[in-house]
């Protein structure tokens, strides 16, 4: 029994991690007033880049870094369109969601002789498990805590981003720009700089999220690897009321649903895994209806800012 709970908790953490990375990205971007619906595309490119660099160099940390950079590159495009050229942020995000998977599969075919699936990374070259071997194998603590380093990093980043947003000068500026850009502008804050910073950072995080799938949860990239996680992260962010810690809890809920699906898949319990998989989405809708619908996000989220415009 205890082992089963341990297994479910462990899988929950593992599957929540990519979502937490991406949702944090969404939190940063939206707090600065830029909707980032392109998280999905950024995650996909990050996942491909992580798997590719990981395969060729054998260095998981370099792979994670490159995945972040790849996501950041797509985010830069999003920022150019939506910050500098006042584009409709949702449309620009949709474009990113075409470009991300497009570029990812294109590169995969180039690097892996026309295959859309990258070659697997050797087990010892995946992201390490820092607590591996500390606890007896398959004991409760081993199942729960013996996780890939990305899991710990993601939870650490939740704290870091919370601290940044609410306890530092830059965080205050990001929130000011997202809430009332005109007032922030009057006080001499460079709106464009803050938004570029936030959007690119959000892409880097989404890229990490992709890599957390491709070099930790599994060990390669394939076309369906990132299928919807970016959108789920977006929902988690809204679910969590645009706050890092809130988004984290929402991601854990989605991760738990995944954990249960995988657990039940290995048992004889006759609950449809399809219905179970549906559950988190229904819960999100119910929660949106009952609580979150009324509390709104950053006031200026979604509005392009034009200097001098009334």
């Amino acid at each position, binding site marked *: 029994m205890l082992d089963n709970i341990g297994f479910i908790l462990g899988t929950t953490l593992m599957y929540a991690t990519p979502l937490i990375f991406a949702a944090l990205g969404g939190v940063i971007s939206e707090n600065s007033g830029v909707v980032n619906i392109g998280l999905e595309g950024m995650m996909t490119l990050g996942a491909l880049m992580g798997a590719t660099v990981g395969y060729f160099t054998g260095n998981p940390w370099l792979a994670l870094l490159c995945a972040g950079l790849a996501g950041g590159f797509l985010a830069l*495009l999003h920022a150019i369109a939506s910050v500098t050229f006042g*584009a409709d942020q949702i449309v*620009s995000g*949709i474009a990113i969601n*075409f470009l991300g*998977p497009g570029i990812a599969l*294109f590169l995969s075919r180039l690097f892996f002789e026309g295959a859309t699936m990258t070659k697997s990374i050797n087990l010892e070259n995946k992201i390490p498990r820092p607590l591996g071997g500390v606890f007896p194998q398959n004991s409760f603590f081993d199942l729960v805590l013996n996780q890939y380093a990305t899991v710990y990093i993601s939870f650490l980043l939740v704290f870091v981003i919370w601290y940044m947003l609410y306890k530092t000068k830059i965080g205050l500026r990001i929130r000011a720009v997202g809430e009332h850009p005109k007032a922030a502008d009057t006080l001499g804050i460079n709106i464009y700089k803050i938004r570029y910073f936030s959007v690119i950072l959000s892409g880097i995080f989404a890229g990490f999220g992709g890599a957390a799938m491709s070099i930790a949860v599994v060990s390669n990239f394939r076309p*369906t690897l990132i299928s919807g996680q970016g959108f*789920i992260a977006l929902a988690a962010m809204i679910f969590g009321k645009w706050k890092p810690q809130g988004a984290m809890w929402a991601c854990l809920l989605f991760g738990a649903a995944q954990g249960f699906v995988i657990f039940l898949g290995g048992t004889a319990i006759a609950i449809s895994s399809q219905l179970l998989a549906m559950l988190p989405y229904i819960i999100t809708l119910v929660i949106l*209806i009952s609580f979150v619908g009324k509390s709104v996000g950053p006031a200026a989220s979604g509005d392009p800012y034009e200097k001098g415009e009334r």
Partner: protein
Amino acid sequence: MKNKKNSIKEMLGSGNFMITLVSIFLGILVGAIVLKIAGYSPLESYGVMLKGIFGKPKYILYTIIYATPLIMTGLSVAFAFKTGLFNIGAEGQFIIGALVATLVGYFVKLPMGIHVVVVFVAAITAAGLWGGIAGYLKAKFGVHEVIATIMLNWIALYLNNYVIMLEGFKRPNSEASYKIWDTATIGILEKWKYTAHGRVWLKVHPILQSIFKTPVNLGIICAIILAFVVWFILNRTTLGYELRSVGSNKYAAEYGGINVKKSMIVSMSIAGALAGAAGALQVMGVSKQVSILAAMEGYGFDGIAVALIGSNGAFGCVFSGLLFGALKYGGPKIQSAMGAPSEVVSIVMGTIVFFIAMPKFIRLLVSLVKRKEVK
């Protein structure tokens, strides 16, 4: 005088159509650059694609068959756009339409002719209700339709998988449902072309034979009729006027006595029905069944691109749907012919949408080009 001429030129240059054309050009250009960097000849690649789209009558038909669902999901997104709503849920509405069409097409037995109508009406009603949920949540609870429809997409996907797995519907040893009855299909002369007489006749007429090798069906005609219906509703009816008013300024519309909440629900329902029609016709014309989905198929997301490239106009969607269908069908041919990654198509589409998102940039570009011309 010269000034006036310039201003007219500028006015033409700042139109929506201009932005779309420049964006399409830039998209193709970026695709060429990407191919070049990857070491493939852009001219040869695009040549292969063009040949793969227009080379044979069969190819053109396939392009149309590929384009048909995209036109309709495009119409769905465009319709909601006009009311100021962003229908990301075309994906899920498509799934519901396809699923209900298959259910009614398999479990209900009706004579030829009536069956098709019943299947179609059932599917678009179900998908309309599905789309209406998002509209209702927005109107009643203020839930943003983008988030609601994203959730509904996944719920639809798992619902689809759940229903297919049910005993009596799942075809044994397959990942799909049973096929719909022939009375529920809309293929053109589908039965005849496999009869002895049909085979002999087609052998004598090689062009028609190549055409009838494709799942040629009535879908495209339905799509064009629906485009006309959308145009008519939006531009020639009171309902359309109200929906558009809500889209351009919902406060003014409310002040003018239009029921904004009702408009949102109606608009999302119609958008849902349109995407559902795409799913239904895809089943009735091409797939004849629904399969277990591991991931989203992308008809709805592609529809967003189609709507944007078509400037959210009904007939714009027909053309951009054909463009997208052509790229989707012709694109993979560069893979088989020269080993060039076919995903260049996604990059081209993404780039087009990307530039359409920022008309400001296009205007800047056009004015820069013009300034050079003057010098």
